[in-house]
């Protein structure tokens, strides 16, 4: 039989999607959460909530002065200082520094010196806030979505990169193989079995197609120097770093003069930048502080352009004079920065960020419905065997089990991570790693149980557990902190992220609970319709 383009593309779509779908679910969920990584980190550090409650009355220039004063006492001889000043998504002053390596240090000691040390200031008082608990917060979820975990980042990035390329293939082949893309544009027919799953897959995929294409393609571009090293190799040989310093507009790195010079006042520089940009800088980097070759770099806050490389202003730290700053970017670098910027969406205001989040959830739903669809279709081949009390094939069983472990199991893992953040002892050693371990303990357990009994009852149990754990987070927060919904909903704007986090996980928990209830209702209906049958071999089929 001669196969048309559509049929062969259907094959490509099915297998490129199925092979990587469970990993893609992790990447999609992690990446979607990462749109709120600052808010998640803030929620996970309840010690900082109190300081953020009052609205900041201190100007950015004053904040920077406060932080510099504190850094002068704690780390006058640091390599570099980094200040994140209060702005829309960050209610506090975050300051950190790296120490210079000394002669005769071992490699380990050098690495330790480079590790940043930090503190947080209350912008109201200029006082140091309570030390937050040791957690990686949203950063863990962000890293997880392209570095994975328990392996070197390079391996993780290759694995995620290959999965992304499969995803890109799946998207393009999916569009080609979808015969009725325009006729079925607005179609969703529930309670029609396989038809409904296909409609749901199409609706989540087609109606957010610009997002899915964009996010997959730009995701690959963010790591293009790793995935496509040939051009750099051809032009620069082994001197990759030369390429980076030539291409990227880093302010020229100056060596310390090893000659003391008092650091100029940063406040006038911030005011100058604010006048030029119409927005106060959100980040200040001081290299070689208190040295004759000190440099102060101010970064414009995101929100005015797609590009993730924001304009900077550079000042001589000893004289306070403005320097010419980094060289202008080439057009191709500008294009890359815009593509990169689209992926990370630093520019997004609250509304646009919410749209990115919803589209990310739609992407998760697209992958999930696609994975379920394979099982639903494949199961039909066994319809006769099942009717005669037989079993489904190994492939269907495996896919069912993986689907349960990923679709129902991953929300449990995310919830476990947040529960661990509140329940592990605050003073515990290696706390941030323990939190991450709980993510994988919960996920591993869910995936294992799914492999042992991939039944419809297992779907219901895991969806219910995930629902209870997510929806229970606001209650958990109320029992373990002073900033529960009763306080955060009526508190200052600084506490809004805490309230929003509680409400969003509650909503996601209710969604999972609804899915569990829907499955249970179906099971009861079927049991009533054809007694007596064994229900435990019936998996997530359509209604």
């Amino acid at each position, binding site marked *: 039989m001669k196969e048309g383009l559509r049929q062969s593309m259907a094959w490509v779509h099915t297998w490129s999607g199925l092979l990587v779908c469970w990993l893609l679910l992790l990447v999609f969920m992690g990446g979607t959460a990462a749109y709120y990584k600052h808010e998640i980190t803030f929620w996970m550090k309840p010690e900082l909530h109190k300081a953020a409650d009052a609205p900041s009355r201190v100007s950015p220039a004053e904040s920077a002065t406060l932080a510099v004063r504190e850094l002068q006492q704690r780390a006058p001889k640091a390599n570099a200082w980094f200040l994140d000043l209060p702005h829309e998504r960050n209610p506090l002053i975050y300051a950190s520094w790296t120490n210079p390596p000394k002669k005769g240090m071992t490699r380990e000691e050098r690495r330790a010196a480079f590790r940043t040390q930090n503190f947080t200031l209350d912008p109201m008082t200029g006082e140091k806030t309570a030390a937050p608990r040791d957690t990686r917060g949203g950063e863990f979820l962000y890293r997880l979505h392209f570095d994975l975990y328990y392996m070197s980042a390079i391996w993780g990035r290759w694995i995620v990169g290959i999965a992304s390329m499969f995803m890109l293939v799946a998207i393009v082949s999916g569009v080609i193989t979808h015969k009725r893309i325009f006729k079925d544009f607005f179609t969703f027919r529930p309670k029609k079995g396989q038809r409904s799953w296909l409609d749901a897959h199409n609706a989540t995929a087609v109606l957010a197609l610009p997002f899915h294409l964009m996010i997959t393609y730009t995701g690959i571009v963010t790591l293009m120097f790793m995935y496509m090293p040939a051009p750099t190799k051809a032009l620069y040989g082994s001197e990759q770093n030369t390429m980076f310093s030539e291409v990227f507009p880093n302010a020229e790195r100056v060596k310390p003069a090893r000659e003391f010079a008092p650091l100029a006042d940063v406040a006038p520089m911030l005011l100058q930048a604010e006048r030029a940009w119409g927005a106060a800088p959100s980040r200040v980097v001081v290299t070689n502080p208190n040295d004759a070759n000190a440099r102060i770099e101010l970064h414009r806050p995101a929100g005015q352009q797609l590009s993730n490389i924001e304009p900077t202003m550079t000042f001589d730290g000893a004289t306070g004079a403005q320097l010419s700053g980094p060289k202008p970017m080439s057009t191709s670098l500008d294009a890359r920065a815009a593509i990169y910027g689209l992926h990370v969406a630093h520019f997004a205001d609250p509304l646009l960020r919410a*749209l990115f989040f919803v589209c990310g959830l739609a992407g998760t739903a697209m992958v999930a419905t696609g994975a379920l669809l394979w099982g639903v279709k494949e199961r039909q081949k066994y319809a006769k065997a099942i009717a005669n009390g037989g079993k489904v094939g190994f492939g269907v069983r495996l896919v069912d089990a993986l689907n349960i472990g990923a679709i129902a199991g991953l929300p449990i893992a995310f919830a476990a991570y947040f529960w661990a953040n509140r329940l592990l002892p605050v003073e515990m050693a290696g706390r941030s790693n323990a939190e991450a371990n709980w993510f994988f303990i919960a996920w591993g357990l869910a995936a294992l149980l799914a492999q042992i009994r991939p039944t419809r009852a297992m779907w219901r149990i895991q969806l219910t557990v995930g629902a209870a754990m997510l929806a229970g987070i606001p209650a958990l927060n109320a029992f373990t902190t002073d900033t529960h919904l009763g306080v955060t909903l009526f508190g200052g704007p600084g506490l809004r992220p805490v309230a929003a986090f509680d409400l969003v996980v509650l909503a996601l928990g209710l969604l999972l609970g609804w899915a569990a209830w829907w499955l249970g209702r179906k099971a009861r209906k079927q049991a009533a319709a054809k007694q007596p049958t064994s229900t435990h071999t019936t998996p997530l089929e359509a209604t």
Partner: protein
Amino acid sequence: MSILILSGTALAFSGFAATSITMDRHYADIHGRGAEPSPATRLRLRTLGWIGLALSFMACIGASGWHIGPVLWCGILSLAAWSVTLLLQYHPRKVMHGAWIGLPAALLTTALLLR
């Protein structure tokens, strides 16, 4: 300019709603099995639908500029299309009534853009 974004969203909804009504399946959902729109109705609604989508694009550009506006528009289009899809399934007649919101939204958008 959140009013502009709001009216842009209404326009996207209205544009998709008008387009969906011209499709046989959805027309039948609303007007009963077997009903088909006349060619004139089809053309009129389709034209109005495209005008709605184009105006919603302009509203997004007006609200967020040429850099971020198109990104915002894509997100709003997805949101509008999902709303139309769900509404067509559960309350098909509301799609027809809801499409009228495009009229005041178009006037508001034009007024805000020309201001």
